[in-house]
């Protein structure tokens, strides 16, 4: 409207804008409500003649504001749309022609949106709307109402082929004949496929007006994938240089997994290639090649097993003459097989050719004029056939003379010579291939002549075994299933001595089909399906327009062997046949190119699809009107003298807005709050180690350090507990959580540690750590006597700590069993009592004598009195620092063992207690 991309869904409402004039006069003479003031000397005012006689008028800003509000509301009621496409001229019916070939699929949503917008715009304008697609060209075109348009557009989907536009022309012609004033909108895919040029010329001649809208980006498609000798090469084509020039191509296997990925670059050309450098085994797994990010059936190339590369082994009976390669049959075979198979030849003269070739596990073994003697060769070939191999034999002098069973049919000795000097028969041509033959569908060129052949003995079933015949009916190629394998015999040689077949393209095609027979079992069993067009293959899985494989549509028909070329409506692209042996039909013919459509006389709007969707301006206009109303209300209140209210209201509004704004400020991350981890804690966390409490008494601390170091060494030597260097701790300051065991020798004369130390120790014990307090007073303490100074000191310290009930270590406590079997804990002295958390009383119902008992967890506290560290401590030379009481190497050993048991106890918990039951448990399990 007015050159702007603005349209109104209900333009009639705009007529109400005239009412704004009336509103103007009305508002002009209706001033805002007066502010009211109580005024006692009112009597004095009455009768006063105002100096100014101007009647009260609404102030012009308020007038303008109110008129704007009115205009906004009227505009909003008219449902304005920005970016609308309603600029479409014309008033007659609108026929929207939506190209639905696969080339339209990548931009399908855009196309449908565009069609929907246009249809909606036309429907708003009261025009008849009809929608047609080339793929449904046979259907009559009927006008649709608004919901019908929506339903139709929803139901549309791109087809996976390029529909023939000419087929759609008659229905369009009939519609145009009924509605001669129709404007045609053709949302075209910009690709010539399906006869766009001819169709546009025809449309131009019959239609009143045609507008062609295309996407600016051209189409991109795959036009083949060749499984070549070294790589899988995908052929890409694009319709014009605007199409994406670079991208990625993906190779997928049958399950849709990505096998390979490679990039392509068109440069300035319209064709490109993408090579997948993959091993042949992986390449053979590829069933689909897709252009990444291109949702289109044309951007998907299906690969069936015909293009699977197979290993073909060639063995020739002729002596290899390198100087004259043209005389060797293997030369022709190699040339013919090279494009689609990997060839292995026998080179190593030291081994048997057939056996060594079969060891390479080929799919096809080609024996060119070679007879097979019984022996390892025959055994190898028989095994090869049984495992599903294809044996391809060529006749020749050796075969004609020889006698073996590896032929599909019995052969007459000697050959048949045609067209020779002594024969009146001329060289024979090849008869057209019959349906049912794997060669069906191949053309039998006239120039191929056969001069000599080996003849098959007439026998029953020969006709079924015959794949190709000469014009006189004699078999040229016979085949027979042998086990899971297949024997195929060419009744001519693989070189040009008997026929010129190896020189023809037919030879290549025939070999290709034969090779494809490999790994395709069940072919023989499917004979029943052989019809007029050869083996009938029903659709298995077909592509939709977006290039997604799915169940075939109802109208899809089977293909025969002679089907070739691109998919169409009846034969949509996809896989046909059985899952074991399927044929691929693709959206594009092999090697086809995407040509840019030439719409001739029609007006083309290129890139017009790439528009933003229309914006419904109501969502802006109505709030704007609302805000205007609010402003008007505030102004009116102010004019009425609501100043105090306004001030408070404004304050409240500011407060609310401010609060919301504050609430919206994201909370700052508080990463910096936690204290940095010290290196010491980092080390402690990374490796397990013993720890002792630094008491402040230098000699005691030194003893603790040396003792624990010695214990750590012994632990590493005797057990798998390889601990790091012991560390001294200040419990009031250091983090204790990293240590499984903390040794605390009690020194009575020292002051009590800080309360923080007590708190930390309590937490450490609660969290599963074990404290070993060593009072070192075994010599002075007497059972039943007064507590020693160290015991008193410890009692004072533990006053605020939650200490569990303690008992002297019982003989069956797990502490005495964790590594060594001990009677008691021994240190420098061997008479002290060691206290540990009291175990739960033994189960009175459990009469089995348990060798060890343990609680549910490790005791958080062990109070020793035998000066453990003093017994462990060694100097740098490994000599004990302190004498033992009563002394002796045995006691030192026992002290060390006590230490090991203590450490093991804290590290393994009640595991040992369970272990001593292992025998019982195992017995119970086996019972």
């Amino acid at each position, binding site marked *: 409207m007015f050159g702007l991309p603005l349209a109104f869904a209900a333009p009639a409402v705009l007529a109400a804008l005239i009412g704004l004039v009336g509103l103007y006069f009305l508002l002009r003479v209706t001033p805002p409500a*007066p502010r009211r003031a*109580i*005024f*006692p000397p009112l009597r*004095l005012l009455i009768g006063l003649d*105002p100096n100014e006689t*101007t009647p009260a008028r609404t102030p012009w800003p308020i007038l303008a504001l109110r008129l704007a509000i009115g205009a906004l509301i009227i505009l909003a009621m008219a449902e304005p749309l920005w970016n609308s496409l309603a600029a479409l001229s014309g008033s007659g019916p609108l026929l929207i022609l939506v190209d639905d070939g696969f080339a339209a699929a990548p931009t399908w949503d855009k196309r449908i949106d565009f069609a929907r917008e246009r249809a909606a715009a036309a429907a708003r304008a009261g025009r008849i709307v009809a929608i047609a697609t080339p793929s449904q060209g046979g259907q009559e075109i009927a006008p649709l109402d608004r919901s019908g348009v929506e339903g139709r557009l929803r139901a549309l989907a791109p087809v996976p082929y390029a529909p023939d536009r000419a087929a759609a022309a008659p229905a369009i012609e009939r519609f145009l004949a009924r509605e001669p004033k129709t404007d045609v909108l053709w949302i075209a895919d910009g690709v010539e496929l399906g006869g766009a040029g001819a169709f546009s010329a025809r449309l131009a001649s019959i239609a009143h007006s045609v507008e062609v809208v295309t996407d600016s980006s051209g189409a991109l498609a795959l036009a083949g994938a060749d499984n070549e000798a070294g790589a899988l090469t995908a052929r890409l084509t694009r319709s014009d240089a605007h199409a994406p020039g670079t991208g990625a191509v993906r190779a997928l296997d049958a399950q849709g997994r990505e096998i390979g990925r490679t990039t392509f670059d068109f440069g300035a050309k319209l064709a490109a290639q993408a090579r997948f450098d993959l091993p042949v085994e992986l390449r053979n797994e590829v069933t689909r090649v897709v252009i990444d990010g291109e949702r289109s059936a044309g951007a998907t190339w299906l690969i069936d097993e015909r293009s699977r590369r197979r290993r073909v082994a060639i063995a020739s009976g002729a002596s290899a003459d390198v100087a004259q390669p043209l005389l060797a049959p293997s030369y022709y075979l190699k040339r013919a097989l090279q494009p689609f198979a990997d060839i292995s030849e026998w080179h190593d003269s030291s081994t048997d050719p057939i056996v060594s070739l079969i060891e390479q596990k080929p799919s096809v073994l080609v024996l060119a004029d070679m007879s097979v003697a019984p022996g390892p060769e025959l055994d190898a070939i028989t095994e090869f056939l049984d495992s599903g191999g294809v044996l391809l034999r060529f006749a020749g002098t050796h075969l004609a003379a020889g006698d073996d069973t590896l032929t599909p049919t019995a052969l007459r000795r000697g050959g048949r010579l045609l067209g020779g000097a002594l024969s009146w028969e001329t060289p024979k041509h090849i008869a057209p291939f019959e349906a049912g033959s794997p060669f069906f569908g191949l053309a039998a060129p006239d120039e191929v002549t056969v001069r000599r052949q080996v003849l098959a003995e007439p026998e029953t079933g020969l006709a079924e075994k015959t794949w190709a015949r000469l014009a006189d009916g004699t078999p040229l190629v016979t085949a027979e299933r042998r086990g899971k394998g297949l024997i195929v015999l060419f009744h001519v040689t693989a070189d040009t001595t008997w026929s010129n077949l190896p020189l023809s393209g037919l030879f290549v095609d025939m070999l290709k089909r034969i090779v494809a027979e490999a790994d395709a079992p069940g072919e023989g069993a499917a004979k029943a399906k052989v019809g007029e067009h050869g083996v009938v293959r029903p659709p298995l899985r077909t592509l939709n327009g977006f290039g997604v494989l799915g169940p075939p549509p109802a109208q899809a028909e089977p293909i025969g062997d002679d089907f070739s070329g691109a998919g169409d409506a009846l034969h949509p692209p996809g896989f046909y046949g059985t899952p074991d042996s399927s044929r691929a039909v693709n959206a594009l013919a092999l090697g086809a190119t995407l040509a840019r459509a030439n719409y001739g006389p029609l007006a083309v709007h290129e890139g017009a699809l790439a528009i933003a969707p229309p914006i419904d301006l109501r969502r802006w206009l109505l709030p704007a009107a609302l805000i205007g109303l609010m402003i008007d209300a505030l102004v009116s209140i102010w004019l009425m003298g609501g100043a105090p209210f306004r001030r408070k209201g404004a304050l409240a509004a500011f407060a609310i807005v401010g609060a919301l704004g504050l609430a919206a400020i994201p909370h700052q991350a508080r990463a910096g709050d936690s204290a940095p981890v010290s290196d010491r804690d980092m080390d402690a966390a990374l490796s397990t180690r013993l720890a002792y409490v630094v008491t402040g008494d230098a000699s005691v601390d030194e003893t603790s350090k040396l003792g624990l170091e010695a214990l750590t060494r012994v632990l590493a030597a005797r057990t798998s507990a390889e601990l790091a260097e012991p560390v001294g701790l200040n419990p009031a300051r250091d983090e204790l959580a990293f240590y499984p065991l903390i040794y605390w020798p009690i020194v009575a004369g020292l002051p009590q540690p800080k309360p923080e130390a007590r708190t930390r120790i309590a937490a450490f014990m609660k969290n599963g750590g074990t404290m070993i307090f060593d009072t070192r007073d075994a010599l002075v303490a007497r059972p039943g006597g007064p507590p020693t100074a160290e015991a008193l000191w410890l009692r004072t310290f533990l006053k605020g700590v939650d200490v569990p009930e303690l008992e002297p270590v019982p003989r069956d406590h797990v502490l005495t069993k964790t590594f060594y079997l001990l009677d008691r804990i021994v240190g420098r002295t061997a008479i002290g009592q060691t206290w540990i958390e009291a175990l739960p009383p033994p189960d009175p119902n459990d009469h089995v004598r348990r060798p060890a008992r343990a609680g549910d967890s490790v005791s958080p506290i062990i109070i020793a009195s035998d000066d453990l560290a003093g017994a462990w401590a060694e100097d740098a030379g490994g000599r004990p620092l302190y004498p033992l009481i009563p002394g002796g190497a045995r006691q030192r050993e026992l002290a060390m063992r006590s230490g090991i048991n203590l450490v093991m106890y804290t590290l393994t918990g009640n595991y040992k207690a369970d272990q001593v039951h292992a025998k019982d448990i195992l017995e119970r399990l086996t019972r």
Partner: protein
Amino acid sequence: MTLPPSIRRDASTLSARLPSLVIAARRVAQTVRHGVHGRRRAGSGETFWQFRPFISGEPSSRVDWRRSAREERAFVREREWEAAHTVWIWFDRSPSMQFASSLAPVSKVDRAALLALAFADLCVRGGERAGLLGLTRPLAAQGVVERFAEAIATDERLRGPSQDPLPPAAPAAPRSMVLLIGDFLSEPERIASAVRAISAQGAIGELVMVADPIEEAYPFEGNTEFLHPAGSLSLLTPRAQSLRDAYLARLAAHREAIREICARSGWGMTIHRTDGSPAEVLLALRMRLSAPEPGTGLRSA
């Protein structure tokens, strides 16, 4: 047109506010009394003042024989000078007085009541009797303020808020003094007749016009609807500011007319704005009471 709720509430609670007004009145009166002393001198009165020796030529009837009998000389009994026997006070309690604008600290009626009670207190302490015109007889008791307040409250309770903007037209006794406090925005003729009626027997007095500041400032602009506090009148002015000059002129004329009326009866007139100090106007009233100048205010008989 109904009154705005604030005015209704104020009117209904004038009696409720009286206790605080009483206290305020006492305080104001106290402030003023510090500066003024009573007229301690002989004059015509009824209270004994002193005996003085008879001066020859005086009428012999003045001789106080009882006193003279005790001595050789004749004495004359003098009574204390009593300048006015009675001070009649009246203040306007009509809706017009209930008004207090945003510029004023108190309503006009509060200020009027304050002035009336404080002046009554001053008068009683100065030896005069004070009465509320139309409500009480003249009182000379110390608790005159409380008595007045009680009378006003009773009147309000019995007869509702007073609607009358002018004092009752009862002539005051000769030589009595009259203090009329109000806004006096009625027609000058009615005011003149009221003043004439009161001063018919020769009572002298003072008229205090209490005015709200907004009445002099006239800060109105634009489209304004003026309402009378009594609700009887309203005026819609599209451009209120255009009336300003005419209004101020008319207000001045009105006041001049009132002043003229007072002058004709020998009364004084004072204009008091509610944002002004009540003590100030009270002091002025008291000064005029003690040092009257003929024609300008209270004067002695």
